[in-house]
């Protein structure tokens, strides 16, 4: 049995090992983008074990994508498998999973503030809680012992580790609570959302959803949406073992209770990379080789789910630019060369595309 994210990991190793990497032959190219311009970062994960993760910066007004901004600002490569970047209080927290570290940079001039390594094993995402506190989800060195690390943002040290389920992944912050998806560990499933009080830094509730919840979003009203990939088990001939597989799902959570869970029709793949627009009218997610959208209005217990194809393409990473509600699709290609970022408007029409780094997986917004 293989979990989706694990197989992705394994195959990125596989490809990674046969391909790619970085060298610091820092030549010409890039003048640094101007500090504080209106733009966002692109996280290029790089091939696992290849150490060719990188950071790009997109200037929205000039429409210029500048690659390798971390390398140019620090004279060292970003590391191995950059998973995510979160901008919080003028700092960029770049979580580099296989390098077991968080690179903290100034989000305006990209200079390095510090590198946090102590207490991190296999970190995934950063979430700012207050000016003195942040949370980091971590899979654990065995990919089984999922935790949330509490980070003191003054000293940049880990002060507490909160055991979650397996595969602590994406987090959202609603009120004084953080909701953590636990996407399953090495060779095993998890199916919970852990709710952590940011006052006590302790789990106060566990909400069971479907198998392998991976991504989570919320709207202003506090309604939470979770997408899980389910669990795919294959027959010896690689067809899907329907009996032992579980379907992916989309769950709606209101007041910390599951209002409804919709199972996807196909068990071959589940919805991932869930995003919500700023008006909370639409959800967007990757499913079965396409980007789909789901109108949130009317979704509830007893109603049927009506997902619509939005972009006829699948992406390695998906994000939503809240200033424009543009959908950002990150295409890793064959994983052997530079990938691309494409912007789509709310009708799903392609606006433009830019070459980024190797295996782009998302934006730092």
């Amino acid at each position, binding site marked *: 049995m293989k979990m*989706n994210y694990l197989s992705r990991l394994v195959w990125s190793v596989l490809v990674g*090992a046969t*391909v790619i*990497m970085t060298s610091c032959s820092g030549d010409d190219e890039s003048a640094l983008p101007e500090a504080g311009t209106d733009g966002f970062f692109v996280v290029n994960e790089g091939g696992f074990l290849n150490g060719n993760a990188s950071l790009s910066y997109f200037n929205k007004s000039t429409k210029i994508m500048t690659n390798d901004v971390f390398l140019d600002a620090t*004279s060292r490569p970003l590391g191995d498998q950059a998973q995510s970047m979160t901008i919080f209080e003028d700092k960029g927290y770049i979580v580099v999973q296989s390098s077991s570290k968080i690179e903290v940079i100034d989000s305006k001039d990209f200079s390095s503030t510090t590198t946090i390594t102590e207490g991190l*094993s296999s970190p995934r995402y950063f979430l700012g809680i207050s000016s003195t506190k942040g949370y980091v989800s971590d899979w654990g060195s065995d990919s089984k012992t999922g935790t949330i690390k509490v980070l003191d943002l003054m000293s940049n040290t880990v002060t507490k580790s909160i055991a979650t389920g397996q595969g602590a992944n994406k987090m959202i912050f609603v009120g004084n609570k953080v909701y953590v998806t636990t996407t399953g560990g090495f060779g095993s499933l998890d199916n919970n959302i852990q709710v952590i009080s940011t006052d006590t830094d302790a789990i106060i509730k566990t909400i069971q959803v479907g198998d392998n919840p991976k991504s989570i979003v919320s709207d202003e009203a506090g309604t939470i949406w979770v997408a899980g990939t389910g669990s795919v088990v294959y027959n010896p001939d690689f067809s899907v073992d329907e009996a032992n597989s579980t379907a992916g799902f989309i769950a709606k959570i209101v007041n910390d209770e599951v209002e409804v869970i919709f199972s996807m029709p196909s068990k071959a793949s589940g919805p991932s990379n869930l995003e919500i627009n700023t008006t909370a009218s639409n959800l967007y997610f990757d499913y079965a*080789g396409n980007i789909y959208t789901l109108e949130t209005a009317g979704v509830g217990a007893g109603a049927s789910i009506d997902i619509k194809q939005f972009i006829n393409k699948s992406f390695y990473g998906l994000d939503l630019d809240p200033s424009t509600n543009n959908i950002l699709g990150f295409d890793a290609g064959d994983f052997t060369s530079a990938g691309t970022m494409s912007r789509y408007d709310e009708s799903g029409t392609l606006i433009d595309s830019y070459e980024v780094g190797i295996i782009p997986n998302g934006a730092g917004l």
Partner: protein
Amino acid sequence: MKRLLIILFVFTTGVVNAQQETDSVRLLSEVKVQDKRLKTYATGNKLIQINPEVIKNQSYSSFTDLLTRNTSVNIRSYGVSGLSTISFRGSGSNHSAILWEGINLQSPSNGSLDLTLLPVSFVDNVTLQFGGGSTLFGSGALGGAIHIAGSQPEFDNRSTKISLSQQLGSFGNQYTGVNLKYSGKDYEVKLRVFTKKADNDFSFDNRFTLQREKQENADLKQSGVMLEVAYRLKDNHTVQAKYWLQDNLINISKVASAGAPSFATQADYFHRGLILWEMDKGKDAFNMKSAFVLHELIYDNKVNILSNSLTKAWTNEASWDHQFSKYWQLQTGVNHTYESGESDGYGTLIPDRHRTALFTALKGLINNKLETTLALREAYNVGQWSPFLPSLGLHYQPDPKYGIKGKIARSYRIPTFNDLYWATGGNPILLPEKGVNIELGSEQIYELGKVELQNELTIFSNYIHNWIQWIPGSVGIWSPNNVQEVWSRGVEATSQALISLNSESLLRLNGSYQHTNTTKEKTKTQAGQNELGKQLIYVPYHQGNLSLLWNKKLSTIGTKINYTGSQFTTGDNDSKRALDQYTIIDISASQNFSIRNEHSLMIGMEIKNLGNKSYEVRANYPMPGRSFNVNINYQFN
């Protein structure tokens, strides 16, 4: 998961009694190749034989070291103790056959063999065959082949030879080897034993952390024994048996960019056995052999992965050589290979396959100047015929000091078990990779007083169809497909000079250079379109090697310089992510002592990477800086 591991580490004999007549054609290159098929029927191929003296003097080395230091072929290494493979002429890591006594040692699981695990002391002859060699040697020889073999039995009456060698060096490097030989009038027994250990705890500048760090968990332990027994039934009628057992334990260090320490280990066990029967009745010579190769691999990362794989191959081959006349000779043979593989990656499946091949080669010497060989091979593999393989080689030598040669050959490689059966993603309908190799070369010898100069220049083109690549599917499952066409072309030049300074001292200069341009010509993936026409990753455009050896009486000093040009690591040839070029210089000195011609003692020392150059052969896998080694070798004759 095993795929990961394997990727991480990845990975004919002959009779000397060859025909004198045909040998004259090879006079020029003086290649004393042992493998009969290679020697007789590889007309037109570029061959490089490693000097047997070099092999003897570097008996403590691994093949990675031997080939890197003595040739300019491209050796790809995942760090100092990691998987090392050879890439001939821009081909892939599993595109080279490694033939021990004519038996292919490539893993049926992943198509490669780790050269770091091959001890030099277990062989006496090493020949590199450049270009497609499938018509003679079957699947796998797309880019080239390495032929390794023990020396032919000598049947010296009551002769005993003992060789003991010991090396000690930096980073906990220890090697001990013992080779014994005893021969009677009609029999010969050889025993080779070695044990090797290295800590590989060198310091390196980590370009990710910008700190000087010590390499951890890169230890290597190896030991092995080989027994070779030969018995002469009659003149030119011998039977030989060989058995090779080797145990290897390698700790796998973390890559430079990784955060967490590594505790991973890989154990490789090899059992290789061979029985060989040869009879030469003048006009007809017969050769039969049966070989069993077993490889068990256990990977343990000490955290959450413990995986096993076991591959077995049983090869049986019979061939018949017939000499029609002084000028025409024909070899016909049949080869049957059975392979099976067990791996966690195949689930409950234990794939196996029977492959049968018929081959024939006709060689003629026309007008005593033109050697011609036409070879054909056809293989039948689990319900389907493999591509029909013809080759034509020509060698025209109008003058003993000058010759030109050329070869056109088809070659192929069948998919590995991993490609076919890996769960999930394995693609059971993969086609074999096919190549067309064309080469043209010239050889010259100049003798100017005390200087003897030999030059060889080769241009080649190798076009490979159906090149297998793992690509992502629509729902994130990776699967191998026959998507690429790759064209490799280039120039290879080698030059050797022997300079007799006076009656006591000799200067030996060897230089080689290769230019390789290997591009992706076609791909079936949308994303790969921007890689078309670009150089393949880890194929340097330029590689060169220069060695200088000065002998005076019993003293030797020498230097070897290896240059490897910049290499791309991304399919779109991003220069920012290219590996830097590097030049590595080694120096060595040795002194021999001889007592009554019976005992000889050699004491030597060498400094590797004299310039203490920081370099990576594979991105993210730092290599050691300067190191010192002392060798002692005692021989009794």
